[in-house]
């Protein structure tokens, strides 16, 4: 009788079964996220339809009141403006960054990363000081003779837009530069040979090819701006509330969990819808900014 062991045969059953493995390793994190993330959010949403009474009363109040609608409107408008500004400034910078010599681009990169990772409050504070009536920006503008009286640049939505654009720029520039870097330069060369001038190459070839990256960045910035709390609160002042501060006020000052939950749910739904739309139109993009 042969004592020869067929190693392949022994291994075969294990291979054939292909048991699910590794689930035990993700289970703890899954439980953690479920308990401390998913559950509280769902609980909050449930409160929005259960307090003070069962039903959609909170939503009716939220979407029916002029004050609240104005806040929604402000939030969307500010987010929209910030997104457009970030795109307008961010696209040329991303383009330049993608084709610059490495010594220069590493400097710009360092500045971008530093800006992104510096404490948010520190950066917002800087703009609070800069945009004051007696602040540096007004001083320079008056000094240059461009204006006579100081502009009201803070404690209003203008200040919010300036500050938010400042914060959102790296979130557009970094991913967009990656997208542009992936475009084959020979395609642009071929377009030039076909007779297209620089402007035609830009509008007919470069921008269409970079468009998915721009849309992904724009969406990320828009969604982030919608839900931003710190910067709009500090730069906008109490009279110009945006959605996040509304939610905070319901919950902290007014202890109205129903309305707070309702407002939060509206924000959540809008966010998820926008992500779903982007996923459908452009597939999975790199939305992680950091």
């Amino acid at each position, binding site marked *: 009788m042969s004592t020869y062991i067929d190693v392949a045969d022994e291994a075969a059953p294990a291979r054939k079964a292909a048991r*699910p*493995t*590794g689930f035990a390793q*993700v289970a*703890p*994190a*899954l439980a*953690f*996220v479920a308990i*401390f*993330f998913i559950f*509280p*959010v769902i*609980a*909050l949403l449930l*409160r929005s339809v259960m307090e003070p009474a069962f039903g959609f009363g909170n939503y009716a109040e939220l979407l029916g009141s002029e004050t609240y609608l104005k806040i929604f409107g402000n939030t969307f408008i500010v987010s929209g403006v910030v997104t457009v500004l970030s795109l307008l*400034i961010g696209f040329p910078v991303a383009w330049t*960054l993608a*084709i610059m*010599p490495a010594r220069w681009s590493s400097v*710009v990169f360092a*500045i971008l990363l530093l*800006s992104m*990772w510096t*404490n*948010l*409050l*520190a950066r917002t*504070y*800087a703009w*609070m*000081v*800069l945009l004051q009536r007696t*602040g540096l920006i007004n001083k320079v503008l008056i000094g240059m003779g461009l204006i006579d009286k100081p502009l009201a640049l803070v404690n209003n939505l203008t200040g919010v837009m300036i500050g938010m654009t400042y914060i959102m*720029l790296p979130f557009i520039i970094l991913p967009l530069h990656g997208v542009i870097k992936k475009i084959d*330069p020979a395609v*642009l*060369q071929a377009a030039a040979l076909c007779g297209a001038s*620089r402007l035609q190459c*830009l509008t007919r*070839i470069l921008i269409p090819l970079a468009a998915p990256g721009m849309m992904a960045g724009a969406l*990320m910035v828009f*969604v982030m701006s919608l*839900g931003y*709390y*710190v910067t709009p609160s*500090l730069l906008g002042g109490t009279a110009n509330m945006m959605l*996040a501060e509304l*939610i*905070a006020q319901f*919950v*902290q000052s007014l202890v109205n969990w129903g309305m*707070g*939950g309702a407002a*939060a749910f509206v*924000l*959540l739904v809008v966010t998820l819808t926008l*992500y779903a739309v982007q996923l459908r139109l452009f597939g999975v993009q790199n939305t*992680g900014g*950091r």
Partner: protein
Amino acid sequence: MLLNFDRLGWWRYVLLAITVLTAAFLLLPILFIAALSFGSSQWLIFPPPGWTWRWYAELLSDPQWLASAWTSFKIAAIVTVLSVLLGLVTSFGLVRGKFMFRDALKALFLTPMILPVVVFAVALYAFFLRIGLGGTLVGFVLSHLVLALPFSILSITGALEGFDKSIEDAAVLCGASPLEAKIRVTLPAISHGLFSAAVFSFLTSWDEVVVAIFMASPTLQTLPVKVWATLRQDLTPVVAAASTLLILLTVMLMTLAATVRKVLKK
């Protein structure tokens, strides 16, 4: 031609101008705050009439500021350790595991990064109030851990996916147990990912504002909360001093992270 820097003609100068201006726009506020923190004007006049260390002295001798800084540090340190450990175990499961919905699960773990923080902050605040964790250290750690974990998972899965598993298998063949092989072979190889996870987790917790605002109590404040509360009242230059120290910390950590990463990756 448009993607060739040398052949853009005069467009090159326009693009460079926009880039330089934008870089300056991004950098100047940071430098401005640092300069302001040494200015002697209480009303933040710039350029300042004189230079002083006064604000730093005030900052570092104020027990409230120091307490909040210490609180921030404690929380960030604990969160870092937990985040890296939990992230490590989870990453092994996500990268090596074969089970249903694995990709969906990975997306789920990354969700806290992309959903508006204020929703999460409010929800968790409500939840913790109910179970009595509001305003406690444990509450802070748990909430920050939710936010730091995605970064940790991203860094470590990235490093693990770039690691050739057959090296670990070779170690097992040499006689090491699977766990031993992971500790002695895999972990050192992905150490740059672990380090990134640690740095990102620390910074995420240290800088975190929104959740902290809701989670804070009069006796337990993190440094960002103290800054926030102070700013809601007035614009004292002490905040500039605190901000500058925070900026310095970021710069140091980022440089450290970059250099250590390079060294570890070899």
